[in-house]
Each structure stands twice: as structure tokens, then as C-alpha cells.
């Protein structure tokens, strides 16, 4: 942990700016650029402020970075980016990417992403990541030069593996189920939360109408007038208070959202394991069949049906020289195959070991973060209640003076 980048430099995403430019298809587009600022963390003794380095990046560059990390470190649960499009919104929030509130929340999410990567023991040491933070020009080319896109597993291949793998590590199977269920439950939670927010907004805002009618009523009253009028003012305060309350709650929702997306990252690690395991199983199967072929050729017995066997039966046997040649080729392939199998096995075991280590690290982080988030939920409720008690107590006092 002492080696973590986050201990050495301060990272902030401090600003967001609207820009226009030309995209890959040479069409005009508007996008938002984010300012990343980095500063070396000073030791206590020096007491000087080191200079701030800064550069601008847009969301697509963050995406590129993350994809690179996903491919390069498939055994790591890679921190997620904030959502691309506003999802789970309730009516007051806009779903427009250019909306200032959305941009602001995205800025915070991007900063959070960078901090997560910088505090990860493995990821923080990556050069591409470091360059992302410090090297403005030529970074894109640098990433592409790593050729990570070529290493990426195809989606189809991964899906195929998921269905056909025979002996995946049990822990990964369980983890896969867990991450699926987690995704499902958090999605559900966020959807309902948005509806709850909507309704609560309605309740508070209608109270604002009391303000107006009490004011109108107070005009025709003598002794009751003042009390009514001032109570009406408190109703207005009550109605207005919901805006701050819901803004705070949005922050809580964002914390849950991060883990919704983290579930996808967990899933990705499981998929990689399945793929590797499937690969291994296929390689083993291939080796077995080659050995069998070799044996059949050597002994002349056909134990299993093969096209080769059929054609030789139909069109005559091969010459002993031909057979010798074939056996030689097969024996070479078998040797290669055995070596490959060994290394694949090793790879597989290493992957399982390091992935599981990161998963344990992730579990700790998740439990810690979510417990904190749930505490903040309770604190928010308390704060909302105290505000409510205050307003209604004030109103009650006004009524008592009627």
C-alpha cells in the first residue's frame, strides 16, 4: 500500500468545460472536457507547495484507458467509470448529458475513478495510467501502440466459453452468480429510489400551496392574521427544503451506482477465468485426440471413427513411409501440445490465485464502502427529519399565536 500512487501524488478532476471539435468522421460535435490536476504530495518537513500539472481529457479517453486496463489486467477487478448516459433519473433531473448537474456528478465520478486506480496496488504502477495523468500529447498513440486491442477476447468467444466450460473453479461460478444477483438487486433498488424521490418531491412541493392560501386568508382576519401569515412562510420554507435533501440523496445513489458497475467488472474477471479454463480444456482434449490418432496409426487399429480411417479403408491404405511421416508430425505436435498444456495449466493456476487475491481485496473495499454509504443514508434521514421537525415546530408556534 505504501507504493500506491495515490500516496505520492494528489489527483483531482477539478473542472469541466464544453468544447466543440471534429470527430473521427469529421463531423462537428460538442463534448465536455475535464481538467485533471496532479501535484506531488509534499512531506511534512518541506512545507512548500509543489507545482500543479494539469491536462484536459474527455470521457472517451477515460474509456480508452479503462479498456486498456481491462485487457492488460484481466485478473483485476477494474474500477468502473461513471455512467455514460444518465440512467435511473427521476423527473426533476434531466437525462441530458450536457445538463450541468449531470456534468458535475460525472466530474466527481471521474475523479473517483482515477483515485480508485491510483490506490490499487497493481494498477497504480501502470505506465499508461501514469501517462494518462501527466502526458497530454501523444497518449492515445501510446495506448494504441501497446496493441491491447488485439489481445482483447472477443465477446462471442467468451460467451461460447461460458456455455461450454466443464470444470470451472467453483468459487468463480459462485462469484458469477453473486455478481449477477448484485447487478439485478442494485438496479431494482436504484429504479425504485428514483420513484421514491419523485413522490417525496411532490409531497413537499404541494405544501407550498399552503403558503399562498394562508397569506390570502390572513388578509380577511384580524387577530388570526399574523399567525397565519407567518405560518404560511414556514410552509414555503418546508416546500423549498426538498431540493437540498434530494441533491444529497443523489450522491448516495451515485455510491450505489458505482457498485452496480463494479458488479460488471467482477463478472468480467469470472468470464476471463471461464475462457482460460475452456481454453485449457480444449487444449487437453486436442492433445488427447492427437495421442489417440498417433496410437492408432502406430498399431494400425482403429478404435474410434475418423474420416482418415474411412478414406484409407475406401481408397486403400497408406504406405508405411506415409504413415511414418504422419506419426512423426503427430509426435511433434503432441510434444508441443504437452508443453502448451503445462504452461496453460500454470497460467490458469496463476490467474486463479492472483484474481482471487484481488477479489478478496475488492470484497473488503466493497463492504467498507457500502457500510459507509448506508451510514450516510441513516444520517441523511436524520437530517431530513430534524429539518422537518424544525419547520413544523415553527409553524406550530405561529398557529399558537393565532
Amino acid at each position, binding site marked *: 500500500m505504501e507504493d500506491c500512487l495515490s500516496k505520492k501524488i494528489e489527483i483531482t478532476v477539478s473542472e469541466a468545460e464544453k468544447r466543440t471539435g471534429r470527430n473521427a468522421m469529421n463531423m462537428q460535435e460538442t463534448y465536455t472536457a475535464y481538467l485533471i490536476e496532479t501535484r506531488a504530495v509534499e512531506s511534512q518537513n518541506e512545507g512548500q507547495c509543489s507545482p500543479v500539472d494539469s491536462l484536459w481529457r474527455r470521457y472517451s479517453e477515460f474509456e480508452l484507458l479503462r479498456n486498456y486496463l481491462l485487457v492488460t489486467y484481466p485478473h483485476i477487478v477494474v474500477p468502473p467509470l461513471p455512467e455514460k448516459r444518465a440512467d435511473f433519473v427521476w423527473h426533476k433531473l434531466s437525462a441530458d448529458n450536457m445538463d450541468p448537474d449531470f456534468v458535475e456528478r460525472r466530474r466527481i465520478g471521474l475523479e473517483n475513478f482515477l483515485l480508485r486506480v491510483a490506490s490499487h496496488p497493481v494498477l497504480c504502477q501502470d505506465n499508461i495510467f501514469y501517462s494518462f495523468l501527466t502526458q497530454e500529447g501523444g497518449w492515445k498513440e501510446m495506448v494504441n501502440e501497446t496493441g491491447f486491442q488485439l489481445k482483447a477476447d472477443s465477446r462471442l468467444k467468451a460467451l461460447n466459453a461460458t456455455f461450454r466450460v466443464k470444470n470451472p473453479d467453483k468459487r468463480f461460478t459462485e462469484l458469477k452468480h453473486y455478481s449477477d444477483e448484485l447487478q439485478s438487486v442494485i438496479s431494482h433498488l436504484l429504479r425504485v429510489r428514483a420513484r421514491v424521490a419523485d413522490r417525496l418531491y411532490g409531497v413537499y412541493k404541494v405544501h407550498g400551496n399552503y403558503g399562498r392560501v394562508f397569506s390570502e386568508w390572513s388578509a380577511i382576519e384580524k387577530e388570526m392574521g399574523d399567525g397565519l401569515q407567518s405560518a404560511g412562510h414556514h410552509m414555503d420554507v418546508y416546500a423549498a427544503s426538498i431540493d437540498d435533501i434530494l441533491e444529497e440523496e443523489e450522491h448516495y445513489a451515485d455510491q450505489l451506482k458505482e457498485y452496480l458497475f463494479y458488479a460488471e467488472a467482477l463478472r468480467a474477471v469470472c468470464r476471463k477465468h471461464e475462457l482460460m479454463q475452456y481454453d485449457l480444456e480444449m487444449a487437453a482434449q486436442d492433445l488427447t485426440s492427437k495421442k489417440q490418432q498417433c496410437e492408432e496409426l502406430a498399431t494400425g487399429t482403429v478404435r474410434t471413427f475418423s474420416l482418415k480411417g474411412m478414406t484409407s479403408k475406401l481408397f486403400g491404405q497408406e504406405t508405411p513411409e506415409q504413415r511414418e511421416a504422419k506419426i512423426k508430425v503427430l509426435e511433434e505436435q503432441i510434444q508441443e501440445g504437452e508443453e502448451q498444456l503445462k504452461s496453460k495449466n500454470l497460467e490458469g493456476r496463476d490467474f486463479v490465485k492472483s484474481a482471487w487475491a484481488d477479489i478478496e481485496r475488492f470484497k473488503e473495499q466493497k463492504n467498507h464502502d457500502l457500510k459507509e454509504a448506508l451510514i450516510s443514508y441513516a444520517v441523511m434521514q*436524520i437530517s431530513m427529519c430534524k429539518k422537518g421537525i424544525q419547520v*413544523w415546530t415553527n409553524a406550530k408556534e405561529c398557529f399558537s399565536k393565532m
Partner: protein
Amino acid sequence: MSGGAAGTAKALPSSGPKSLREMPHPLATSSSEEMGPALTPSPDLLLPRSIADKDLSLPNGTPVDTSSPASSSSLLNRLQLDDDLDGETRDLFVTVDDPKKHVCTMETYITYRVTTKTTRAEFDLPEYSVRRRYQDFDWLRNKLEESQPTHLIPPLPEKFVVKGVVDRFSEEFVETRRKALDKFLKRITDHPVLSFNEHFNVFLTAKDLNAYKKQGMALLSKMGESVKYVTGGYKLRSRPLEFAAIGEYLDTFSLKLGTIDRIAQRIIKEQLEYLVELREYGPVYSTWGGLEVELAEPLEGVSACIGNCCTALEELSEDMSEDFLPVLREYILYSESMKNVLKKRDQVQAEYEAKLEAVALKKEERPKVPTDVEKCQDRVECFNADLKADMERWQNNKRQDFRQLLMGMADKNIQYYEKVCGTAISLAGIQVVCFSLRWC
């Protein structure tokens, strides 16, 4: 009222050849004052000698006959403009409680127990307990309107209930109605004139009210209503300022109450929709808790907290429906019936002015003022006096009622937030313990 028997009302003695218009009005104060709760009685008014004393006189010294229900009641009203019933002087207590369902072949209905405790001479016994149904209350109100047309009669809860929408026999509905009926009788009890009304007496005491109802009808048709104020057919040129002001006030007042009613209903509706969503929200945390190990307890805690919030919210909405809205509606009904009384007053004044004009044109009748015109004047004066006194009483009661109602509304909201706060605090407690056990 000992002078209840209908005899011929004797005319007010005339003060001489002055024209009626020049006679000092018994309640002469500045005529252009606004109607408001601070209607101060003329300093000339004397506090009562005994009510039973037949030698009552007007402040200007003219003796008055108490045999006419109209004049004596108005006099009593005028003499007791101050808040006359504090705890010590109160001698009549009425309560409505104990609703019971009766199932008969023809119908099903609810009766309420009406308990009376009193030291008044008008009652034979110190205590009574009778059972009455809504019909009976309705009958009483009609009788009071008929026999005391110059007074503001408190409203009853709404008579008709849309079947199928509201359950007439549900606990909530019955309780709401009971409270309103109790309020109705208490308002009558507190009124210095209405509480002495004989129909009210019978309502509180008679074992068989139906028999009295039938007998009452027969009596009436024999004697004719002794006080018949609904003259009809006369058009008032202009309402005196103070009554016009009351009319305008009542118009705006009931309008504002209507708006408040709609807002309150809308809030209840929004709260119930919020409740629906909360009911789905809580359990999702539970489901999540089922997936987790370390997070199970905090997540379950949130679920429970939301559950408690739901319960508290339900209670709040119920309270508002049952306690707040009915009182608002009562006052809207009250305003409506008060406007009708104002109209009746206008009628009486119109009749008087018309007859007076007719007299002024006939020169032979002067200087002697015909009796029926004098009676009209008397009626107008009494009506105005009664109405003003009742208005002031009404304003005071209204102020107290609304202060209590609105403070109650604030209280219910405070209680709701306190309940939710409490459950959130204990949730935070669990969470923090859970957190610190692991990471501190």
C-alpha cells in the same frame, strides 16, 4: 325559558310622537364599524338580573315583555355578549359516545349515546342518558332552525354518504361522525339561547323521541308557528354595511377553506403514492441483505427503518383524513348556513322597510304607528342583535377551533418526523457499531 307559551306578543310601548326612524336603537354604537371579533357591547348594557325575572328592561329604561320568544331571547343574547361560560358557571354538560350498530329487518343503522349532566331547573333530573341516531340530530337541527331563526345553528356532519365509496359502518367513519355530532351538541350547549330551547331539552331527555316528534307536528299544525320569520317576497335595497361585511367575509372565508381542503386532500394523495413506492423500496434492501454476509445486518436495518417510516406515514395520512378534513368541511357548512341566516335577516328588514314605506304614504295613519310595522321593527332589531352577538361568539370559537386544528396538524407532522428520526437514529447506531467492529 319560562315564558314559552305562546301568548299574544305585546307591543313595545311607544315613546311618543317621534317617527320610528328617530327612535334610538337599543344597541346604538357607531354604525359604520367593520364586523370583526372585537365587537364591543355598548357600555349602557347592564349585566343580567335573573333570567326568570319578568321585570327586564331595555337600557333606556323601557320595560319589556319577555313573553315573546323573539324579544326575550335577543335580550338574553345581548346581555350575555361576553364569553359567558367559563368552567365555574357552566351548568350543562353533554357528551356523545358509544356508537352501536343496530340491525333490523328494514334497515341497519348506528345509534350514539347522548349523556347529559346538569343543574338547570329546566331539567327534571340531574342526569340523562339516551340513545340517538343521525336522523334525530337532523330533526333537532331543523327544529332549532325553525324556532330560532335569528341565530346561527351549528352544522351537522354531511348527511349523505356515497355508498360503495365510504363504508358507513367502518370504525373510522363512525368515529369521525361521532366527534362531529359531539361538537354539534357542545356548540348548542355553549349557546346562551339555544341551550334553553325546548326541543333541545326534549332531545336530551326524552325516552321516546319519535312520539314527541309526531306530537310536535300535531301541535304545530294547531297553533301555527308562533314565530314566523320567513316572510318572503320582499327585496332588500341594500344590506347595512356591517352585515354586508359579514357576508363578504363569509364568502372569502369559505372559499379559502375550500382551497385548504383541496390542498390537504392533494397532500394525502401524494403521501399515499409515496407510501406505495416506499413499500417496494424497503424489501429490496432485504433482498440485497440476503446476498451478503457482512452487509446483511446493515442492509436489513435499512429495510426495517423504511418499514417503520411506512407505518408512521400511514398514521399521519389517516389522522389528517379523520381529524383535519372533517373540521374544515364543518366550517364550510357552517358558513353556508350562516349566509342563509343573513339572507333571512335581509328578508325581515326588507319587509319592515316596505311596510314602513307603505305607511309613510298613507297620511291618515299618522301619527299613530300601526302595530304590525312596530312588530316588524322589533323583529329587525332583535334579528340584528342576535346575529351580531352570535357572530362575535362564532368568531371567537372559530379562532379557537382553527388554532387547535392547525396546531394539531403541525403536531401530527412533528410526531411523524420524530418517529422516523428515532428509527433512523437506531439504524445509524447499528450501522456505526457494525462498521467500527470491523474497521476501527
